[in-house]
């Protein structure tokens, strides 16, 4: 059993490190993990759930705003949503999403329609990808716990 646990832990560690290295996550995520304790054991999960819900909502807002069929494009509204998304993503440490939001914002300010649409698509892809990855990470954690081990603290630096 210990071998299994050790193996799972190693897998978990490698996977987490890869996420960081690939730029999916940044230090903020580490901080987030620090806030999880016996008082709030599912803190990270809760936050991430909220984040993804937020993503869905904001992305649909942006899609609607960028829909030319309803009239003129309201860039300010798009910008507001982007701003929100940027804030959310930086709060959870979603690095790539945040980076995308930064450039998305520039396009909004420049009122570059194509750029915005492009960014929107990318954001959509990114957050879904992140969601999948994080899902996998959580599954690994669950497996470790079920196997009786403890989730290792991964030191990125």
């Amino acid at each position: 059993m210990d071998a299994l646990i050790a193996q799972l832990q190693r897998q978990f560690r490698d996977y987490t490190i890869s996420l960081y290295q690939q730029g999916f996550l940044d230090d903020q995520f580490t901080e987030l993990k620090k806030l999880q304790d016996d008082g709030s054991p599912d803190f990270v999960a809760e936050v991430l759930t909220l984040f993804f819900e937020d993503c869905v909502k904001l992305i649909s807002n942006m899609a609607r705003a960028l829909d030319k069929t309803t009239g003129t494009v309201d860039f300010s509204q798009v910008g507001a949503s982007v701003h929100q998304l940027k804030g959310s993503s930086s709060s959870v440490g979603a690095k790539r999403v945040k980076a995308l939001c930064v450039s998305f914002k520039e396009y909004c300010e420049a009122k570059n329609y194509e750029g915005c649409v492009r960014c929107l698509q990318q954001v959509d892809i990114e957050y879904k990808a992140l969601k999948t990855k994080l899902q996998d990470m959580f599954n690994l954690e669950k497996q470790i716990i079920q196997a009786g081990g403890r989730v290792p603290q991964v030191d990125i630096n």
Partner: protein
Amino acid sequence: MEVCNCIEPQWPADELLMKYQYISDFFIAIAYFSIPLELIYFVKKSAVFPYRWVLVQFGAFIVLCGATHLINLWTFTTHSRTVALVMTTAKVLTAVVSCATALMLVHIIPDLLSVKTRELFLKNKAAELDREMGLIRTQEETGRHVRMLTHEIRSTLDRHTILKTTLVELGRTLALEECALWMPTRTGLELQLSYTLRHQHPVEYTVPIQLPVINQVFGTSRAVKISPNSPVARLRPVSGKYMLGEVVAVRVPLLHLSNFQINDWPELSTKRYALMVLMLPSDSARQWHVHELELVEVVADQVAVALSHAAILEESMRARDLLMEQNVALDLARREAETAIRARNDFLAVMNHEMRTPMHAIIALSSLLQETELTPEQRLMVETILKSSNLLATLMNDVLDLSRLEDGSLQLELGTFNLHTLFREVLNLIKPIAVVKKLPITLNLAPDLPEFVVGDEKRLMQIILNIVGNAVKFSKQGSISVAALVTKSDTRAADFFVVPTGSHFYLRVKVKDSGAGINPQDIPKLFTKFAQTQSLATRSSGGSGLGLAISKRFVNLMEGNIWIESDGLGKGCTAIFDVKLGISERSNESKQSGIPKVPAIPRHSSFTGLKVLVMDENGVSRMVTKGLLVHLGCEVTTVSSNEECLRVVSHEHKVVFMDVCMPGVENYQIALRIHEKFTKQRHQRPLLVALSGNTDKSTKEKCMSFGLDGVLLKPVSLDHMRDVLSDLLERRVLYEGM
């Protein structure tokens, strides 16, 4: 014998002669009868006549004499025998009585004479008594005058008034023509006419003091009669008055303060006298009476006493004025000193502020730099920069602290920290410079040195850094060794006895360098502020000279001692200090290796129950911030809009974190409204901190202008939030980059 009983007269009767005899006898008889009557009448009238018996006798005698003479009337003619018989009887009786009376008078007349003499004596006595009474009355008058004079003289403490009053009163009492007072001049060689009663005197009228008449007067305490022609008495214009009145002079001792000893009447060895000259009116033939002279002497004494009192008073008034002046001057000096201190403090505060701003820019940018993609070496460099700038910020605080240190108002910030790590950090900081100078540094930690200790980490690091830094600074070649050990009771300094108590120990750090060394004579000067030894080698090293002074003060605050040993110039020196540190109980727990448990309870319980309000429109970041604060033990309330924030905020919330990421100023307005809300109340308003996406200068300025107490860069790390909360609660203000 004839039978006729007639008696014949002896002589023949001469008619005329007989007639005359007859008449005379008659008148004698009448007179002799009336005298006793008169006597009786007058005796009866007066009561005091003592000799009544004599009077009776005398009366009888007179009566009988009268009877005899009366009967004699009948014998001029022929008379019968009966008449002769009666006559004879009468004569016999008269003889008897007169003899008795004569005998009686022998006794009485001396008495009467003596009465007379006594009467005369008494009269003389009465006259004498009258005279004496007159004298006494005069003396009484004089006494009254003296008392009144004294009273007048002593009623004032003004020198001038005393003297003037004396002269006036004396003049009045003794009815003087002129009264003058001569005072000795400053040189003491002359007497100057200072006061006169009636005549205006020319200014600066002086006489030399060595005149014989003056010496005579000064030689005795009595009033002396002097000649009216002597220089001191020649005041009046000679105007044909021949008989100048008598003049009397008396000395008036001028007593100094120093004459009054405790049990001593003042010695009159001062030999400073004034001369009082009194002149009777001319042409009055008045003489100086003894009692008048006595009066003058008494007055002179009184004047002396009054003058000395006036002198004492003058002295004390002068002293009081002097004290007041000094008081005013001291007050001014104190106020100036206070102003100077305030100015210095203001200056320090402003300078600190000015220095802090670029400092924080460095810290902020270094922190930001840390966030970017860096190679490990770059990361190390950036970390070093960050650590150094933090240290510099601490140093700036300490410059301000130094002034607080001198007031004694600085306190150590105790905390638990890792001693071993501290040393390693210090060495890491110094290593770059040491490497450049090619000075190897070795660290030697004693095996029994505790790992986790309680003390002021920042300041201890500052002390070690200062000492090691000095060692590096002043060494051109050789090596530096740093040794840390737990010290036992035998120490070098004899006046410092080290007693390690249960939960405390004394850390000793020895830093040995092989540099220029120090002249043993200069060692005491090292710890004084701003003093630097002037050897050529050290001149180029710069530095403010504050380091050792500050270190010494910190070491003293830590109940320790610091000293430097050197074998002389060129032989290097060793800096040694002891400080008292507490042993942390955590040293046992933290020795376990492996996965450190995430502490269930927040490590800084000082935040437990701290009520905080978080305002953020973004649900995710709101949740994250809340989680952060809850993890630190705070009681968090969240709101998602400005209005809700304003509604919910209360005096129970100590801090309000508000997200100001949204462009525009609406978010900042909330700060102003919160200010407003709390100025109306008496409660202290919560601290307002903005959470913003950037913390550049404009953002910070904006925050400051809207009355926010600080701004934080989102997202905030756990450690940073912890530090921020500590700082905030301590200083009530936070303006940092990150």
